[in-house]
């Protein structure tokens, strides 16, 4: 395997999620999170989730991402070999920075979620104060 090759990682099932009225399995989407001076950027892989199938909510400092797939696409199919696992996505984070919730942007393209969370004015001010000290 050359260093450029991707390694296949098994999907991780979400356990202990609160009871849901929607049936089906949920998986933890792999994420990249990085921070620049002005914003937090979160990217999540959610293959199979159509545009409009994602919910992003921020309560206090708790960020929740939910993605739903179209289970009807798989109805009536008899599995011969199952490795991928059909299901939605669910993940929760606690944000360390105060975020300007009115300016959060979410975009889902080819099953990859791009979430931009601009830092609040106060969080940016605080950072500037620390740098000046």
């Amino acid at each position, binding site marked *: 395997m*050359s260093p*450029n*090759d*991707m*390694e*296949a*990682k098994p999907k991780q099932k979400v356990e202990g999620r609160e009871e849901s009225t929607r049936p089906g399995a949920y998986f933890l989407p*792999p*994420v*990249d*999170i*990085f*921070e*620049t*001076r002005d914003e937090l*950027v979160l*990217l*999540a*892989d*959610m*293959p*199979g*989730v*159509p*545009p409009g199938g994602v919910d992003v909510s921020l309560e206090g400092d708790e960020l929740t991402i939910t993605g739903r797939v179209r289970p009807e696409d798989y109805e009536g199919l008899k599995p*011969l070999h199952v490795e991928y696992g059909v299901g939605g996505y669910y993940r929760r984070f606690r944000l360390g920075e105060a975020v300007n919730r009115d300016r959060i942007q979410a975009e889902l393209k*080819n*099953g*990859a979620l791009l979430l931009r969370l601009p830092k609040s004015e106060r969080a940016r001010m605080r950072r500037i104060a620390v740098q000046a000290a």
Partner: protein
Amino acid sequence: MRGERVFSEPSSDAAFHRRERAQGRFRRVVRLPGHVASSDAKAELRDGLLTVRIPKAEETRPRKIAIQAG
């Protein structure tokens, strides 16, 4: 099937908190049970999910054989 995924890197002043998504080349070979009509195979990439549909070969599909009265 094979493919490659490449990310554009964020600006150099960005600090990573988590880095779980994979990038690079991938390749997967699957041995199929039975005979298939490979010339009629269809592949679709939608919402980041690849679906390949390969019809079974005509000669392996179940067939009803009429019995003629002797």
